């Protein structure tokens, strides 16, 4: 090889190397990011000055103002704060003390819980935050890594934690139940309640009774066999399971045609109630599956759309009452139940009352389940009337049909819905119920069941919502008579939770993004705050170091907003606002 050849050869090799390097250089360098943390524990134990949460603390009818330790405020689900400082007059002085972003989209449906000066609040997609209840400082945090392809009919909410001893307990969308040390955020136990890929999920806060964490599954739109479970709160060990649909040969199985009970739904996705005096647990159940095609499941479909009274130690049934036998509208039975001791027709009586999703306000005797009264609490109810035994007399026009044109009221979401709360003021004898006023055309189709897939059988045409005709009310209802005393009307369905105070205030919010306070006696709005996010959360109140706070989770889920009320421009994104009265 000549000298010139060597030079050309070297030049060629160099050029090729440059070309190769340039080509490689077009690829972005791989940046190694550290894994995103999902669990931040407390730097030092928090809330330690307060001892463990005991059964005695949970039993009291009136929870002290320095805490809010149950989703329902107390076992009777009053969501009524004893704070007298929160009045229609003082509400005008509420101002933001602090706010906190969840960093997630989807509906922010939680009720915060406060104990030992610490607030425990969950977000959509199962984030759990421990916050200083006075300042909002983040103390510890856990972001649950849910499994892929969750089976969720209606969004990714979580409605809060239960507190048992020194543990806070959260259910997850992938059907885990997880307990955390409330002081540190350390995980104490983590169990799988069900296989989420079969259609199960957990969205409710657990109810704590006798050191048992009781929680039920969602999945009525997937043809699951519904149930609720009791777990040893200290260890997570399973104690009992209550199926809401009977098995073969069990009582109630003959209320299902053929083997339809095997995929009968009847989820137990909301929160129960407990009467310490009689040691009775009350739990409600949801729709039979498939939702809108009852042809294959002829019969009453027990124990869907019901309330069950049980022994909390064993899960054995004491009595049941079914609100909507053979439901073909997805009316569920699991809106909030209130346990009230009051006069009924002039005589003292222990009542269980509920504004059912089907549009009727029910009054039962909670000692034996006897039906006492049902009255419509909505302005539009046409699917049925209720006879003197409590059984619906169904309007044939309202039955889903292949070519239905009939506007049936209420919509499948209700009325009231189990995803938000009402409140009860025992001094006024009024229960405050947010609701949707919308009708739908229920259409029946062809059902197809496969485990883990939607099992619906029809659809509710959202004709009112699409036409912009869906609206909402917050109604004050006489606890005993069911008569509506006043209504506050909003242009969109009222789907935010409710708080009542001993000072005569009611606090709730709108889908358009306002927190509102009303005079409990008149329904007059006395204060508004523009939160920006639609309200789907459950407000609470508490007092610490002489200062009064109101915590309101805001942030909605566009898909359900559109379903309920028509297309919305309100953006998603959870924000917790905490308001305070001046010292």
């Amino acid at each position, binding site marked *: 090889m000549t000298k010139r050849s060597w030079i050309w050869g070297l030049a060629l090799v160099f050029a090729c190397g440059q070309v190769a390097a340039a080509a490689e250089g077009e690829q972005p360098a791989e940046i190694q990011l550290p894994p995103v943390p999902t669990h931040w524990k407390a730097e030092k134990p928090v809330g330690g000055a307060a001892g463990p949460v005991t059964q005695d603390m949970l039993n009291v009818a009136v929870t002290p103002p320095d805490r809010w330790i149950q989703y329902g405020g107390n076992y009777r689900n009053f969501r009524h704060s004893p704070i007298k400082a929160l009045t229609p007059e003082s509400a005008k002085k509420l101002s933001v003390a602090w706010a906190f972003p969840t960093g997630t989209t989807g509906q922010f449906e939680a009720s915060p819980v406060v104990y030992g000066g610490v607030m425990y609040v969950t977000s959509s997609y199962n984030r759990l935050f421990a916050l200083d209840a006075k300042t909002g400082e983040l103390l510890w945090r856990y972001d649950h890594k849910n499994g*892929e*392809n969750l089976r*969720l*009919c*209606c969004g990714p909410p979580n409605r809060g934690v239960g507190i048992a001893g020194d543990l806070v307990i959260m259910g997850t969308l992938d059907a885990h139940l997880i307990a955390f040390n409330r002081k540190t955020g350390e995980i104490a136990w983590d169990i799988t309640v069900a296989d989420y890929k079969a259609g199960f999920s957990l969205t409710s806060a657990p109810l704590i009774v006798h050191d048992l964490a009781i929680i039920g599954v969602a999945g009525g*739109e997937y043809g699951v066999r519904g149930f609720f479970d009791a777990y040893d709160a200290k260890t997570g060990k399973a104690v009992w399971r209550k199926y809401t649909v009977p098995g073969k040969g069990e009582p109630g199985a003959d209320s299902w045609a053929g083997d339809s009970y095997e995929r009968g739904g009847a989820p137990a996705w909301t929160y129960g109630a407990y009467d310490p005096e009689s040691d009775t647990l009350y739990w409600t159940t949801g729709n039979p599956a*498939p*939702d*809108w*095609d009852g042809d294959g499941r002829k019969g009453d479909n027990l124990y869907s759309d019901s309330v069950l009274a049980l022994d909390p130690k064993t899960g054995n049934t004491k009595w049941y009452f079914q609100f909507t036998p053979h439901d073909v509208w997805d009316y569920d039975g699991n809106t909030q139940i209130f346990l009230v001791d009051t006069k009924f027709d002039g005589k003292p009586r222990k009542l269980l009352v509920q504004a059912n999703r089907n549009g009727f306000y029910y009054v039962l005797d909670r000692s034996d389940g006897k039906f006492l009264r049902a009255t419509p609490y909505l302005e539009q109810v046409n699917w049925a009337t209720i006879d003197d035994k409590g059984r619906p007399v169904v309007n044939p026009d309202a039955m889903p049909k*292949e070519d239905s044109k009939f506007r049936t009221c209420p919509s499948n979401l209700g009325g009231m819905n189990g995803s938000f709360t009402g409140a009860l003021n025992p001094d006024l004898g009024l229960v405050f119920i947010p609701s949707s006023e919308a009708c739908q055309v229920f*259409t*029946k*189709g*062809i*059902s*197809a*069941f*496969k485990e*883990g*897939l*939607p099992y*619906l*059988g*029809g*659809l*509710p*045409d*959202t*004709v009112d919502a*699409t036409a912009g005709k869906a609206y909402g009310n917050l109604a004050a209802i006489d606890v005993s008579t069911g008569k509506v005393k006043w209504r506050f009307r909003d242009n969109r369905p009222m789907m935010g939770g409710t708080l009542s105070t001993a000072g005569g205030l009611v606090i709730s919010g709108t889908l358009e993004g306002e927190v509102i306070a009303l005079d409990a006696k008149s329904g007059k709005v006395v204060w508004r705050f523009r939160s920006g996010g639609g309200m789907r959360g459950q407000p609470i109140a508490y007092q610490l170091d002489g200062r009064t706070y109101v915590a309101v989770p805001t942030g909605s889920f*566009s*898909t359900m907003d*559109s*379903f309920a009320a*028509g*297309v919305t421009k309100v953006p998603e994104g959870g924000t917790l606002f905490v308001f305070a009265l001046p010292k």
Partner: protein
Amino acid sequence: MSRASLLLALVLLACKRPEPESPAQVYLRDPAAVARGRLIFVGNCGAYCHSTQNVERDAPSLFDCEWKHGSRDADIFHVISEGVPGTRMPAWKGTLPEGDADIWRVVAYLRSASVCKENAPPAPH
């Protein structure tokens, strides 16, 4: 082009078999099949997912002629059959009473009920 080449091209063109008609196109001419496709859609797809009112939710409207995963009948069939990973759209293969034939009937129904103009009124169903 030589005369022979031209002749060959014409022969090949004449022999080219037409694109086979999709089952959905066959069903489109059968009102009973379209009606069944509608009932399957109503029974499984339209409640909390695909609006029949041409309203966009997190699941897209299927009546506006806008397709995210291909607009051929076969593309729509494939999406229904196999699902869309990472979304709420499950795979319906092997689920419907009459199998693939029912999926094609759903495709036919969607074609029949779509309104492609802007400001489309609610889709009939």
